[in-house]
């Protein structure tokens, strides 16, 4: 069934994109500022997650002005995806044992993006055509 534009997931993704745009417009000294390149890459990734995969909307936090971290939280695991320029770093952490697994990724092509989203456990949605995704 197609997702409703006013469904909870859509609202969360739309809010995320709007907030990323606003963060890039903040003054550089603001705690929530991220640079324009990081914002553009983050927007592209979030849009692909939203439209091409069946993955819950992440939360996020700005990291040191030049990167943005998307987060997924479950009872046991926390996943962080750090986006800085063309670098992507994926961290999976068991919240109780603190054991963690780190991976350096990049997204120079749509296939890269597809591969790591599959690792996140996000199934491509049936209507998805990832090769047509607008990846910088």
């Amino acid at each position, binding site marked *: 069934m197609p997702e409703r534009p006013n469904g909870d997931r859509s609202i969360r993704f739309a809010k995320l994109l709007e*907030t990323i745009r606003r963060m890039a417009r903040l003054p550089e000294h603001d705690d929530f500022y991220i640079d324009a390149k990081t914002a553009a890459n983050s927007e592209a990734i979030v849009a692909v997650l939203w439209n091409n995969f069946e993955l819950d909307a992440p939360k996020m*936090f700005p*990291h040191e002005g030049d990167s943005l971290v998307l987060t997924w939280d479950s009872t046991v695991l926390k996943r962080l995806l750090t986006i800085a320029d063309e670098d992507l770093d994926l961290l999976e952490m068991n919240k109780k044992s603190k054991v963690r697994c780190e991976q350096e990724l990049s997204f120079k092509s749509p296939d890269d993006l597809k591969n790591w989203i599959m690792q996140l456990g996000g199934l491509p949605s049936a209507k998805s055509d990832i090769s047509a995704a607008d990846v910088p």
Partner: protein
Amino acid sequence: MFPNDLLCRSILFPKSWPNDVFDIEALLRLDSVDKNVHALSVASRYLLETVDGAHKYGCRAAVAGNKRLEEKNQRPPAPVAEAIHYLGFYDMRYGAVTDISLNYYEIQIRWRFENGEDAHFQIELHPKSGDSTERQRKAERAAARALLATCLAGPYRHICACDEAFRQDLETIEMTEFAFEQLGMI
């Protein structure tokens, strides 16, 4: 300090604001204190003595922050929209923080007298010797924020007397709750 001593992290809105868009790590921003060291400001609950003492510490931090905003902008910050409001604090156990193990950084908790505050401490990340790239260190600093978040318990909510007029706005702000069992007291 002893393993079961508590450190508190003030919740200053909107400067460090977790909500349905921002995750709790937004509250745990690591500031660069020199070229290599990154730090998170906290306060000792032992030195602040009571929950009320911890709230007064947070109120003073908000007042100082607003004073800096006023000096910078040559006008008082607009309440709620611009001004910093103290909303309470989260606890962290000293031992839980020092138990965090990182690949490229060593965590140290140091007493750092600041702005006349005796109770001010910093959770500091000092680089370990050995090879690592800036990308690895940066990713690990993000990981450190997530690991520190697993140590939080609370919040203890509070509205300052100076914010009484905005109580309704401030009380409706949602805060992530972390069970006090998460403190892992022995």
